[in-house]
């Protein structure tokens, strides 16, 4: 033992400790990520041998309207989803912070997030059923015309967004609530002594101090929403009329319905680049917005 330098010995231990995780990392993250790039340069239907085609898949991708449409729909979905989800979450968090510490309320608000996307999709598929669904009954009750929701090309993506807002609103609220509770109460007390109104307090104290949580929620929910798949697989399967064929759905379809592995990989690698660029940009902003507390 005394022959080995300490760093060498602790390195031995270090690698023993990380061994299982390292295998997992190499086998299921690093290698497949590299392999995806490799596959993207081939034409491959899983049955025959892959056939090297150079950049053909990328060229095809750039000329593929469905690809651009997928990206556009994903981006549109993010825009429909995120602002409302964050606003509702924030609203709920502030209300809960002021009114109740009840665990029941928290648990109930969080419940939809704890159910799987598939399950939530089924619930809303039923709720939004044009004939049997309660939503149309309510619409009729208010004297409005019944809608097709998930069956209507103009409404399908909005409906999917609404479903996901329902599922994630509670999560947002919980994250914001945690953020709110790190804001010291004396800030509000001293502000109210100075006669600041509640709304001003929210704008001048709460929102700025909530910025780190806000950035976190933004990053995770934007990248997450951009990759929406489950709900669409259950509710619309990309339809009607491709109106919900978002990018990940299109990629999975190419890979596992059309068996165009090379093309699907080319798109997924491109998606990865887009997500990476977005994350790096956000991290840049995040660094500029370190918490003002402590």
């Amino acid at each position: 033992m005394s022959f080995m330098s300490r760093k060498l010995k602790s390195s031995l231990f270090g690698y023993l400790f990380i061994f299982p995780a390292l295998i997992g990392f190499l086998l299921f993250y690093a290698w497949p990520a590299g392999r995806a790039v490799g596959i993207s340069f081939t034409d491959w239907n899983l049955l025959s041998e892959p056939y090297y085609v150079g950049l053909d898949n990328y060229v095809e991708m750039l000329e593929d309207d469905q690809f651009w449409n997928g990206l556009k729909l994903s981006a549109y979905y993010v825009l429909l989803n995120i602002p409302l989800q964050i606003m509702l979450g924030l609203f709920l968090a502030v209300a809960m912070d002021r009114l109740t510490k009840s665990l029941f309320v928290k648990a109930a608000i969080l419940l939809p997030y704890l159910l799987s996307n598939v399950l939530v999709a089924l619930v809303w598929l039923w709720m939004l059923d044009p004939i049997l669904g309660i939503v149309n009954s309510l619409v009729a009750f208010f004297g409005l015309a019944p809608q097709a929701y998930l069956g209507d090309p103009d409404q399908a993506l909005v409906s999917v967004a609404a479903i996901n807002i329902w599922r994630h609103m509670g999560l947002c609220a919980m994250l914001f609530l945690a953020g709110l509770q790190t804001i010291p109460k004396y800030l509000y007390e001293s502000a109210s002594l100075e006669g600041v109104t509640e709304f001003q307090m929210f704008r001048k104290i709460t929102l700025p101090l909530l910025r780190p949580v806000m950035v976190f929620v933004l990053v995770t929910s934007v990248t997450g929403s951009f990759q929406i798949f489950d709900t669409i697989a259950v509710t619309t399967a990309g339809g009607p009329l491709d109106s919900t064929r978002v990018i990940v759905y299109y990629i999975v379809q190419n890979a596992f319905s059309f068996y165009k592995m090379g093309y699907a990989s080319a798109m997924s690698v491109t998606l990865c680049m887009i997500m990476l660029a977005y994350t790096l940009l956000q991290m840049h902003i995040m660094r500029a917005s370190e918490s003002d507390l402590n």
Partner: protein
Amino acid sequence: MILIKKITPARCVAWLVLITMLVVTLFPLLFVAKTSFVPAGELYTTSTQLLPDNPTLSNYKKIFGLLSTEESIAAGGSGANINITTSMINSVIFTGIIVIVQTFNCALAAYAFARIPFYGSKLLFGAFVASMMIPSVVTLIPNFVLMRDLGLLNSMLGMVAPFFLMHGFAVFFLRQFFISLPKDIEEAAQLDGANSFMIFFKIALPLSWAPLMTVATLTTINMWNEFLWPFLIATDDSMKTLPVALQSFKSQTPQGQPDWGGLMAATVIATIPTIIMLFFFGRRIVESVQFTGGK
């Protein structure tokens, strides 16, 4: 101390918002529960009612396979089958293996990154963290091909493979915790003659129950709800997890239209484990979820 709070207009509005949100959150689930007790023929007539006219358990009998195919079609079934018991068991095994093995592996790795100086640790930790940023759809195809080549399609090993060894967030989160543990406790153990493994198992792990449970809770939520990967691997009914089984139950409509009663009964059954967990571990779950944004 009980404070009698002033009733202000703002507070009233806030309560109104909160209660509305609670209703919006819970009502759909109650409505689904109601539907699951409605006999096949009455779906339309009772669609606006809060309670069924003639409550029945036939939907539940159907999904638990207690009725023959003919009986089940007669009871409004689509003729499709869902092995809800099997898929529930699969979900438990799938989630259980991943949660236990992944948490343990990540704790080991996180401890090494936090405390053991080794060649390449900074680089590897950076790589582990970066793995969080890779969209799952990128690794999906190569991983699927790998499972196919290894003959692991339709096997539990194939289903847990990409998850159970490592997870970037868990390593990151636990490393933060291990760094915050007072170092001199471990140094005392070092002087007492414990090697890194003993320090990990006898000192660090016993002091880490709370963060380990947080990680395990989050992994449980994510894996219980995981859809795409098991959907690709488990094509055989006997291997499907709950979300996969629900999806295929929904999409098999031999009779032309979905069996709403059966589907809603299955939805209720699939919701029950979550409600039970929430009932027993509500605080832990809420706090774990909140933790993800706190760091």
